[in-house]
């Protein structure tokens, strides 16, 4: 029986989002009236040339940076209405991050790094979920190692585990495969895709690699701070075609 058509729940949303960097005299409009919504349980890729505003959009959606105008919602909260300590709490409880590099604290072991967000929130870890996560990421025998003793791929997997451990509304990933070789990168993307399919985790990923975008359910194309294209079920080819259209 097919499910009745129903509007999917929105997990993150920007309405007329404007972000301007710099001083009054010398400013850069990084995001120009961006309106976009992300469905819960979806995997979205944000693409575009360098400097188009991908990272900025992600930072604004995740509550990492203040916006200049417009509204931003995440997991039902309006972020632009929150103060710094409330935002901090949102980041801790509702959001997970995977950055391109430098994801981990060098003084902590892999296990401690993964549990850090729960630790900061003063929450008890769910040992079952922890085991399931680390097993599925193949980290079980690396948990007592420190980041300097892990390979780049292992470090990124630790970062993903850390992002997932709080069961956040959204995981934001900024070029998570940027510093990895292609085989390791592929494994990571496959894992992220499985997470979305099997666990219903929402992921928003910034990438400039069309092959990476192909793992997502949807690809947004940014140019000069505006969303210029929205490619559903992207493939490497369809994304490359969309990017090629920008050249004209």
């Amino acid at each position, binding site marked *: 029986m097919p499910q009745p058509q129903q509007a999917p729940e929105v997990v993150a949303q920007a309405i007329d989002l404007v972000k301007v960097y710099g001083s009054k005299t010398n400013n850069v409009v990084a995001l120009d009236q961006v309106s976009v919504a992300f469905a819960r349980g979806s995997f979205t890729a944000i693409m575009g040339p360098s400097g188009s505003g991908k990272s900025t959009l992600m930072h604004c959606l995740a509550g990492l940076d203040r916006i200049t105008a417009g509204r931003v919602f995440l997991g039902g909260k309006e972020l632009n209405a929150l103060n710094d300590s409330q935002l901090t709490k949102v*980041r801790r409880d509702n959001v997970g991050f995977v950055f391109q590099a430098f994801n981990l604290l*060098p003084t902590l072991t892999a296990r401690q790094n993964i549990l850090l967000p729960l630790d900061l929130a003063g929450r008890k870890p769910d040992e079952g979920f922890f085991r399931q996560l680390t097993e599925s990421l193949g980290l079980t025998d690396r948990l007592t190692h420190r980041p*300097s003793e892990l390979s780049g791929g292992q470090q990124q997997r630790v970062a993903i585990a850390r992002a997932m451990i709080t069961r956040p509304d959204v995981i934001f990933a900024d070029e998570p495969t940027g510093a990895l070789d292609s085989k390791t990168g592929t494994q990571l993307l496959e894992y992220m895709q499985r997470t979305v399919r099997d666990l219903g985790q929402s992921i928003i990923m910034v990438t400039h690699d069309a092959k990476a975008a192909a793992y997502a359910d949807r690809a947004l194309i940014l140019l000069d701070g505006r969303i210029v294209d929205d490619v559903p079920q992207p493939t490497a080819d369809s994304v490359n075609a969309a990017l090629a259209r920008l050249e004209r």
Partner: protein
Amino acid sequence: MFSDAIREVRHHPGRIVATLIAIAISVGFMAAVSVFLETEKGGLAKQLNRQYAGADVLVQRQTQDRTDAQVIELIKSKPGVAAAEASWTTFGPVEKGDTTLYLQLYGTPSETFRWSKVVEGAWPQGTDEIALPRDLAKKLDVAVGGEVSLGEQKMKVSGLTDDPPSRLIQNGYISPELITMMSSGEDGKAPANTYLIKVADGTTPDAVVSSLSELTSKDANTGESAFRVETTEAAMQDQLKELTMGVDALKYALMVFAGIALLVGMIIIANTFTILIAQRRRQIGLLRAVGASTSQVRKRFIGEAIVLGLLGSLLGVALGYAIAALGSWVTGSLHWGLAFPWRDLLVEIGVGVLITLLAALVPIWRTSRVAPLEALRPVLSADSQKRVSKVRAIICTVLLVLGIGLSVLALTSEKNSVLMALGSAFLITFAVLGAAPLYVALLIKGWGKLVGLTGPTSRLATMNAARNPQRAAATAVALMLAIGLIITLQVGAATVRETALSQIEEDMPVDVVVGLYAMGGPDEESVALPKEVIAKIDSLPNVRAKALLQGGATNDGRVIVALNPQVKDVAPMAPDSIPDDVALVSANMAEIQSTETLPGVNGEMITLKLQASPAAGDGMVVNDATLRRLVKDPQPAQYWFDLVDRENFANTQRQLSQLSAEYPNLMIGGGAFEAYLITQILNIMLAITSALLGVAVAIALVGVANTLGLSVIERTRESALLRALGMPRVKLRLMLLIEAITLALVGVVVGVIAGAYFAWLGISAVFKEADIDRGINFAIDWQRTLVLVGIAVVAAAIASILPGRRAAMATPTEALAID
């Protein structure tokens, strides 16, 4: 070489500010000492100069062989003498109300020779007037026409003079008539000891000096000349020489403390350079990759060290001047202007640059280990998990074993205990400081286990503190050294005090003895305690037990008292009774003589057997019957009492000293008094040395700020990551605070333990060598120690404020940026 260095300093002032402060404090200490002492010296010399401003030649009397009139007549008979006069000066207490000033009193000189002006009123006339400098009149709270007393004599203030305020030289003026009366001599008129001569125009002072050669001719018998004749200039030069010797001695003593501050400063500077170079490994690698030789790289850093040293030293000189200005403002010498001892300052700046360079040399040398590849390697974290070398462990163990061996020798050998204890202290110090990288991280981790239970913030903090053992060790070592020295002094002082006090308790168990000194002669009334004194003592608080002893003075003026049952309350070791013809005396006295013969009431001689007893204190105690044979009419003669709280003797002392104003022959003695004196002297000495060593502690604490500040800079990304992961700003600050306190505590704890051991060792060795055969009462002054620990911890907490702000300022987006 320097332009690069200056650019680096200008671009990253935050990185070097703590180092600059450390250098500035070290150099500032030295500069303050030089400038202050030179200013004082200059002030004194100028003040003296001022007083002889009108005189060109001084004649100083050595013997009493001519009258003033003769001397003056002789001087005036010489060609080129425009004016001459005798000058008197004496010391006298001038008081009003509770204020007493000891003034240098001058007979008012005549117009020609006057060095000050009367700004209000007039110069003193007759024998009951006095002129005072304005500031002293203010201190005494008198105006012109007011009354002060000079010794016993009432004086009217005739005028106020414009003498500059000074703590060191305070003048007053009285009429020549009065001063010659005060300095009694033959027929109540003493000859002056100085004569002032003004030389006429066209004559040189030297010419006048040589024309007065007959005054300086040597006596045939004694080989001494009756007068000294010198130009004022020469006399002032002599004065200056004497002053300089005194000032220099003080300067060198203070420079010992400056040396300690410098040593601590060097540790901080070396640490800074190690960190700076670690942080710039990529930059160095890049330089090497583009073809810079290691010596070119080194030159850059040497240039930076020199620029830093110079800058810090100059700041230090400014700081020193500020402190010296404050100090000489307090003493009043600031009036004469601050000194500019450029030679001292040049040397001090040189020392500042040199120690910076020396401290930086080892870290700079290591830059050669940075490979060009370093530039290409992504840095995951700047902590170089260096293996702590085995060599270090072995050397430090050997030093420690040798040190402990010497300690044992020092405490058992017959000779040279102190020398060996000193050697032992040095060896152990080197071992403990040298081995710091081996144990500091462990201590921090242990402490981390403890505080880590409180949550992730403190766990992260202690992990951060321990992540770079070398750095943590260097930071802690600076504190260990500074705190260790202070604790050595504190524990030493406390131990000496406790030991001395328990000795006093044994020798003089009676806390306070109040009696009267026998005024001499067979007047027994003279030692009977007045009723007011007894009443006063009865009203004193803080008294546990007291005994009023009957007694009196013998015919030859010895005070004897008789034992009574109450004595046992204040001196528990006192016997129940004393046999006839036996006197209890102090152990010292009993050692010298075994009997004492005293005149009895009926004129016969009575021989007493002397018996040592602590209960006797400094006096002589007999039984009632014996007393009656020695003293005609015994009266209550001595009040003995025991205090509830000996430490609070000061209060008792104050009340008793009110009595001694009324009864000049009141005798106040007893153990509490001696204990009080010893405690006071030790406290003052300890306060001064602690304050001087405090400079080293301050530098060590700057080191804590420095380490944190630099670590935070290299951990910007981590801080940002923590913020992105949901750590609130306050928690980041708290993390730095805990890190600071952790570093400080490790240094303080090791410093306290080592310091306490050295103090115990030192005093034991001194006692051994001095052949003092009594156990020492090892004591730690917990109050002072805790205050010191508290200051260190609070200061470390304060030191974490700026680095903490910096860490908390990291925006979460910085974690994502890739450089």
